């Protein structure tokens, strides 16, 4: 991967100044590169990874397998559009599985909310044949980050 993209994937809070120093480049070069990544649709955005278990708010996450009938003219794309338009849908993938076609990640405040969303919004979409909902019980790792408390730096104990 391109070094700038690698750094941003690792930590989206890196400033252009930090990245310039780490990669031995000028800030202008970094800014230009980032702009071109955005223009070319390579860099779509940079997001925080939050451990919702440690916040006060309620947060539920579910994976939903959708079996669909692809449409003759536009295949899966039209159905996908009808699904990803909802902000509750956090990710949507076309899968190679034999059991289902689309995998949807939904986030909401309660299980009930997600259940309603599936029943009232997802299932009725034209072309959707069936849904199978899997609620996440515990997150161990997401987007490459392990969900655990910051560990104490044990290294100071020695020397």
């Amino acid at each position, binding site marked *: 991967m391109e070094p700038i993209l690698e750094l941003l994937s690792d*930590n989206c809070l890196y400033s252009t100044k930090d990245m310039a120093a780490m990669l031995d480049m000028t800030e202008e070069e970094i800014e230009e590169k980032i702009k071109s990544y955005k223009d070319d649709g390579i860099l779509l955005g940079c997001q925080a990874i939050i451990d919702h278990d440690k916040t006060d708010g309620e947060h539920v996450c579910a994976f939903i397998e959708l079996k669909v009938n692809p449409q003759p003219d536009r295949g899966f794309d039209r159905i996908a559009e009808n699904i990803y338009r909802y902000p509750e849908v956090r990710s949507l993938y076309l899968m190679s599985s034999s059991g289902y076609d689309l995998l949807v990640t939904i986030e909401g405040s309660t299980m009930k909310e997600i259940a309603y969303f599936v029943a009232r919004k997802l299932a009725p979409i034209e072309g959707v044949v069936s849904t199978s909902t899997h609620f996440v019980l515990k997150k161990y790792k997401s987007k490459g980050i392990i969900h655990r408390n910051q560990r104490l*730096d044990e*290294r*100071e104990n020695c020397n």
Partner: protein
Amino acid sequence: MIDYSKALSRKARDIKPSGIRKFFDMLEGRKGVISLTVGQPDFDTPWHIRDAGIDSIADGHTFYTSNRGTPEMRQELAKYMERRFGLRYHPEDELLVTVGASEAIDLAIRATVDQGDEVIIPVPSFVCYGPLVEMAGGKPVFVESTEDEGFKLTPDKLKAALTDRTKLIVLPYPSNPTGVILEREELEALAEVILETNAVVLSDEIYAELTYGKKHCSIATLPGMRERTVVVNGFSKAYAMTGWRLGYSAAPAPITDAMFKIHQYGVMCAPTASQYAATEALRNGDSDIEMMKEEYDRRRKYLVRALNEIGLPCQKPEGAFYVFMKVGHYGLSSEEFCERLLEEQQVAIVPGNAFGECGEGYARLSYAYSLEHLKEAVKRMERFVRSLNK
């Protein structure tokens, strides 16, 4: 009541505590300190290496191993050394697995030094050589180098330090604390001087895997040098395995045999689980090194640029994970600078004179820390030097 002043050996009483230690004691009990002091990786040991150690225990490999180290590990070690550094050693009688590189250093010194023998130690360098030489009854001969000399041992200075009592020459490169490496031509120039003597070289290559841009060159690969060199290395820095306490030495059989005898009586063998883990590291760990090195390299570049920007000049180190920065131009001694930095901005770094008197005017920073950590330290150091400029 026992009189400890009489109970303890003169050597043990006289030996000076480490200058790094002294600074660590100052840290104790303080809250909110940002420390750049440690000399060990911040990465966890890679999982496949940890698993190999865990599996060895689960499988019941809980006995002493062959005192030289398991045959399997020595085989892998020989392959690794050739693959990575072009060094060729016989696993049977030229390799010795030790309790950290530290033990290997101690063994090499004790195997070569008699009462009153001289050992040449370039400074600034890591703190262990002098005291270990003294414990062996030898006399450390410190050869100083300046920033103008790139903190490198020069052939002229080496020549000037040689006497007919010189038994051992320590070559601690890539260097802790300066991050300096010696390139092939520089080693050749030193070798020319060394080949005129009967001295053995102790080449401490613990940071050999952590060089940036240039590949590490071992002096043992130069013509005529293999027969008189003890190469010392270990797993702590390259594979983030400090707690496993595993190192090794590579030297011709007559030297290895002598070291082996001392090792047998002193420690018997290195920890068995660690040897199993290290064997896995040698087999499948090359990519782990690259991953960590890439990360260190970014931090190195960041820190060097940031320090130079805030008025703490430093060269770009080519190895290890330390920056040796100049602090003397603020009119404070290294210790004063570091003490005040700790008092006023809660940043801990190690004064350069802990690594030899010629380190006065400098301080060592470790970049084995996350970038966030380094950034916070830089921010505080900037506030500190601004306050000194007023």
